[in-house]
């Protein structure tokens, strides 16, 4: 009986977030033509997916261990640069922009793989060498990871230079489909598919596997999990690595969308990720997803209408959510 009511309450809480997303989606129709609207919506959804990939790790890391990792944006940037390096090497062999469908899928996969590898390496170094020393001290964690982010971005500037670099797009993802007046960029559809896939896999792991249950329990109450006998620090390192890898994947995918990589890309993305985490609630994956969609869509609509205020609308959404639901849409109440 009691579990039933909790379930229904949770359902209401979830629907609430989705209702806001759908409402937000339809709002701009009042002011713009349908074809522009569709293009913007697809772009916004794809943008939301990149943000989601960054935010999901940040959110779970914070939920599990109370660590606010300010260097998360740097993983995103490193992912983008790693994939850029691999893709431009493969481009030299003619795999990327002129290759067959198989070659372009392979180069896409290799680019993502490079991002994952570098994300895991960097995450491991950062977690083991630096963050481990300051567990439990919020202020120091934020400051130290902020310093690390700064150092990592400087390292990017040293290795790859401080300027923008052009990124090739695999031929299979280049171009767009046209339905009547509506133009849909192929790559954005791929990005949305990857984002949804990550959400589904993450939810399955969290709901169905033992590790997932431990992680969820850890988010709820880490002392009890420790008392039962699980080494929460080890699990946390694992979650941290997965989060770093996801952010790196986000960076790689973002680079194909933006067609360039630049040292500041991680810092920009981190701002959105923070907004998403606050909106969605610390430690909630579904919350991050809803938050990322809201932020991505709102950003795209407003940047079409009044470009300078695009980030402002996201900040306003965040402030309103903080007022109504201080713990975020799906956060632990």
């Amino acid at each position, binding site marked *: 009986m009691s579990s039933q009511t909790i379930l229904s309450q949770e359902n209401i809480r979830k629907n609430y977030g989705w209702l806001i997303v759908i409402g937000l989606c339809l709002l701009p129709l009042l002011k713009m033509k349908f074809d522009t609207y569709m293009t913007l919506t697809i772009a916004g959804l794809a943008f939301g997916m990149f943000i989601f990939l960054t935010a999901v790790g940040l959110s779970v890391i914070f939920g599990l261990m109370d660590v606010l990792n300010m260097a998360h944006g740097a993983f995103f940037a490193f992912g983008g640069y790693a994939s850029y390096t691999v893709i431009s090497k493969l481009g030299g062999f003619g795999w990327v922009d002129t290759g067959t469908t198989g070659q372009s899928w392979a180069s896409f996969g290799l680019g993502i793989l490079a991002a994952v590898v570098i994300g895991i390496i960097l995450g491991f170094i950062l977690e083991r060498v630096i963050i481990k020393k300051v567990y439990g001290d919020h202020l120091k964690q934020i400051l130290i990871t902020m310093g690390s982010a700064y150092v990592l971005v400087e390292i990017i500037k040293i290795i790859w*230079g401080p300027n923008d670099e052009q990124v090739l797009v695999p031929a299979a993802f280049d171009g767009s489909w046209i339905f009547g007046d509506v133009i849909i960029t192929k790559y954005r559809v791929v990005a949305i598919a990857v984002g949804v896939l990550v959400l589904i896999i993450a939810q399955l792991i969290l709901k169905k596997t033992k590790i997932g249950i431990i992680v969820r329990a850890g988010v709820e109450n880490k002392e009890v999990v420790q008392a039962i006998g699980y080494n929460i620090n080890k699990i946390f390192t694992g979650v941290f690595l997965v989060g770093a890898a996801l952010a790196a994947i986000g960076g790689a995918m973002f680079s194909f969308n933006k067609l360039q990589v630049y040292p500041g890309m991680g810092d920009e993305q981190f701002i959105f990720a923070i907004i998403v985490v606050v909106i969605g609630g610390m430690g909630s994956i579904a919350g991050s997803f809803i938050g990322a969609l809201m932020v991505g869509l709102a950003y795209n609509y407003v940047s079409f209408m009044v470009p300078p205020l695009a980030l402002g609308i996201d900040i306003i959404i965040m402030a309103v959510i903080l007022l109504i639901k201080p713990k975020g849409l799906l956060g632990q109440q």
Partner: protein
Amino acid sequence: MINELTPVQQDRLNEQKTRYTNKGFWLQLIFIACLILVPIVIPSFRVVDMVAKIMIMIVLVASYDLILGYTGILSFAHHMFWGIGAYSVALLFYHSTNPSAYLLIAAIIIAVALSFVLSLLLTMFSLRVQAIFFALLSLAVAEFALILSEQWTSLTMGEDGVNFPLPDLLSSASASGRMVTYYLILVISLFLFFLLMRFVQSPLGKVLRAIKDNEKRATAMGYKTLRYKIVPIVVGSCIAAISGILFALWLRFVDPKTVFSSGVMIFVLLMVIIGGLGTMWGSICGVVIIYLAQTWLPDLLKVGASLLPPHPIITGLAERWMLYFGIMFILIMLFFPRGVVGTIQKYLHEKKVAQLKK
């Protein structure tokens, strides 16, 4: 009759008695005298420029220390308030046909009012939830300020920056323009710094220290901790805005990169941490150390790089000197979290304790 003085009154009496025999007092006087003499004795513009910038930064860093060191709340928007000050004076002078000194007062009022409202809004939204949200919200808002200053070109001239005319008294039109600006900066910075010193020694500052040491205890003693935390944030932000006005006056030029970019925030954080959190004198120490390092480090690195074989990575390592500040920041946080002044204070304290034990 027994002694009716409370410990606080006793303290004050002691302070009044030793006020003029105190070493610190004379040191302060000598320090101020040096600052007054600098432009007269040393005619080199480079030195005067550095001293003026150091004074401005000291106010900025000290006001940040008021927020971070005395409440433990992390703000990532301090450079935004600085920039608000800088831009308010720049835009007022730029858009007015006849720049007069009265506009300076108007700029101060506008900058302080804007900072007051903004910082109050930020605290209202975030602090009531959790202190960490203040860091997140302020980071986002500061980024938004950078974007606005870059893209709202009709008001801020965008990335080109604002090159504004100054009233005759301060501008290069009169021969002593720089001198007057220097002394204006000196007077206002000194005033603000001693205001901050007074603030942290006031009863309010003592409550803040109690809250930082143990918030639950302070709540149990009946202090409404949330309200007490808002005060230093608002005061610190307003002082940062005035410091920004001084900066714009000295530079005679403002652009988004110099005031609104997050690099400024990193520098302020570095200076606060090096000097020592929660010590006003630490901010002086931190600013001076970083400014000296900033002047010498790039040259030193170039010499170092010329000894090694030329390779893009090595020249990169030599050119990106900011990297070493970042590494220094991490190392200090890990091994030296009290900063210079904090460590000295701890050492003196331990010595005193050891003496008392004997």
